[in-house]
């Protein structure tokens, strides 16, 4: 019956630069192979462009670039995690998706940094997962 615990949610975890990050799975709409990305001029370097997601044009963000990391290697494991930011879709390019893992929101240690796209940190299966707020990540309201 533990699985039906209302407080439990799931995190979609992905790896980037030897770290594990996670989105709350309720904000994830798709996980797709990296499609052709159309270059969009005059935007930040970490926005490689836009892609066609079943007839919708969705901006793509490079997760590593957004976090200020070096450009990682993208291979056949890399994908785009499409998250819903209050109605607008955003494709987040990540080097490797790991798993959907259960977590309890109350176990998250909140990040003390204000206006950060990191909600907090949680220990899952013996490693630390950084939980990402996708709306902050998308810079929607800036």
């Amino acid at each position, binding site marked *: 019956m533990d699985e039906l615990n209302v407080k439990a949610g799931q995190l979609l975890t992905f790896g980037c630069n030897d770290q594990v990050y996670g989105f709350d799975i309720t904000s994830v709409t798709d996980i797709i192979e990296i499609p052709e990305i159309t270059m969009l001029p005059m935007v930040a370097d970490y926005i490689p462009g*836009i892609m066609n997601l079943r007839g919708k*044009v969705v*901006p793509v963000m490079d997760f590593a670039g957004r976090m200020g990391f070096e450009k990682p290697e993208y291979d056949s494991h890399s994908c785009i995690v499409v998250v819903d930011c209050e109605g607008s879709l955003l494709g987040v390019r990540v080097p490797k998706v790991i798993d959907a893992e259960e977590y309890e929101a109350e176990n998250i240690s909140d990040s003390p940094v204000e206006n950060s796209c990191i909600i907090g940190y949680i220990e899952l299966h013996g490693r630390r997962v950084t939980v990402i707020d996708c709306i902050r990540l998308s810079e929607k309201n800036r």
Partner: protein
Amino acid sequence: MSKFDAGMESMLDTFVFESTELLENLDEILMRTENSELTADDIAEIFRVMHTIKGSAAMMGLKNMSELAHAVEDIYFVVREHPELEFDHAPLYEFSFTTSDNLKTEIENLSDESIPLTDFSDLVGRLHEYAAYLTGLSKGEAVAAPSAAKQEIFADDEPEGVKTVRVRFTDNCLMPSIRAMVLLNSIGSDAEVLSTIPKDLEAENVDEEIADQGFIIKLNCDDLSIVMSILKDGVDVATVEEVKRQAPAAAKPAETAAKPGGSSEQGVSTFLVKFEEGCLMPAIRAMVLKNTVSSMGEDLKTDPADLESDTADDDIAKKGFRIELRAKDPEAVLAALKDGVNVLSAEKLEPAAPKPAEESAAAPAAAAPAAKAQAAAKAADTSHSSIISVRLDKLDRLLDLVAEIVITESGVTSNPDLKNVTGSLDRFQKSARELKKLTDELQDVVMSIRMVPVQTAFSKMSRVVRDMNKTLGKNVDLVFVGADTEADKSVVDILGDPLMHIVRNAVDHGIETPAERAAAGKTEKPTVTLSAGYESGEVVISCEDNGAGMDPKKLLAKAKKNGILTKPENEYTDAECYELIMTAGFSTNETVTEYSGRGVGMDVVRKNIEKVGGKMSIDSELGRGSKFTIRIPLSLSIIDVLGVSANGTELSVPVTSVKEIFRAEKDMLIKDPDGTELVMLRDKCLRVVRLSDAFELEGERIPLEEGIMLYCSEQDREAVVFADELTADQQVVVKPLSLLLNKYDLKSKGLSGYSILADGSITLITDINELFIHNGVRAAEQSR
């Protein structure tokens, strides 16, 4: 507490939608007929609208709306029943419009629980009064024209066995209506009174009417003589007589043959054939029909009998073509007739009793327009049922899916695996082409679904102008230009309110009074022109009036007085002065009228338009008029674009921006000392805007003579846009930029959106106007 019956919530959407449609339909009819003729069709349609609203409102438990609709229905009932009635139509329209407005407001407020149901009893009362007035008028008509009155005594559908008795009172009888009432009571036990003429014994003028025409009672009874004797015993009764239907008069023997009923002769069937209006020689068609059916029966008779006579065509056109014959199989004859060329309708007439004579000549003639009216009503019905409403999100989904199908289709038909297939692919290729054709068509159709002409938003304005003409007496003409311009449904919906404000302002503030116009020596009619069109991926709607125009100095002075200036007075350009009127708290009109408020209008309008990514601009010339222009992005509009590539990036330039495409020769190019590249095109020196520079596209700067030059002009700016090459000429659906990209402000840098092409790739759509502004292309001198 809910406004309507519990359990009806689920019906609310449908009710609101249907009623709104009906009321718009009503407005449309009223607008159309107000200054022309109100035909029987229109009356019937209005009647139908009111009847439907009455019914559905009652079903929803909205008693107030139901009663209001009922009251109007009553009025139109009188109008419908008395087509001969001549009266001033103005109050009728006023009442109809008021009702329509009231119902619309009520419907709008339905879902808001905080607004109580409106009490329409005052309006209903006035409507009843007007209905009574019309009824009275119709009676009055009857007095004036006794022949019409006789016709009224006998309703066409009156069942047999109904006796009609006319009672006349003595001349010195003071209150015949009271006597009549007493008489009715006294015969109550011996007869069943169906109706009386006059109907309402308590109405005004009823005494005069009875004195004039007598009192007519329609009743059912076993023994008429008993009733007659009771009536004769009544106080002040002078005479009592039984009135019978008059037999067909012999006065017009020629016409009796044309009576609308069928022949009563046994075994003989009568058919009435009507031809289409456009049928040129109905007599010839009739002859063909006659020949066709002659083999199917005996004793063939036709009316008109002589089909070769000069008047036969006219007669048939007016009355239809009648065939009488002794047929074995009348149904087969009917079917044969219906199959005839140009036949509108063919019907078998049942033997009918002869009608009252007076109108027999007119009856068939009257039947024809009635049939026409029916046909028209049928046509109208089909046009109603051929429109269905669909939720927008379903449509959007459909659009996305179709785009996917197109992409998948090309994925299948040009699949790399096909290369490895040995043997012929001919049949596969054939099917693939077929599939491509179909998907292309599917895409076209689906894309067009969401698009509606701006006409819908425009036509509501006729109503606004009409109302204002009534109250302000300015007699303004409203002219539409490009009303068939299509825009996304949501855009057209958004346009409604701003347009209303602007049009009101134009008529109220813009157009002068007739006296002022005369004083200014203006001879042209006061006109407000609404026009629509496309310009660089935007719908451009403008409202232009030929009124007084605005004086920048006055505006400035006024703004100063109101304290809304934000910089020194002398720094304001004319254009900025005009924009002042879109600032909160500004009104140039000294008196506030019903239509224009206190300057809250225009700033709200601007805000609403800006909210959906639109822009609004004002231009004016003192004494000549003003022009308000709204530009709204086509959120889902299809536009023609030229595909170009610049340093490997695919971009689309709206065709409407491009004036000319050329390649530059070396001697046309100029480089000014600052390094700005210029090109001489004939006698014009134009700036060259490299797309690769404007959009910061990395790559080699190719020499200008190697690429392609697009001479573009947008509003008052023009320059040459330079790209590497021209790649396509296509139609695209503009999708607005994602909200997530707002912070890059791409729109003001010249990117208006993107579009997915048939092969699934994405092209960026440029906004030439913004591109020019952003890249410092100077606006041409205002040449007014």
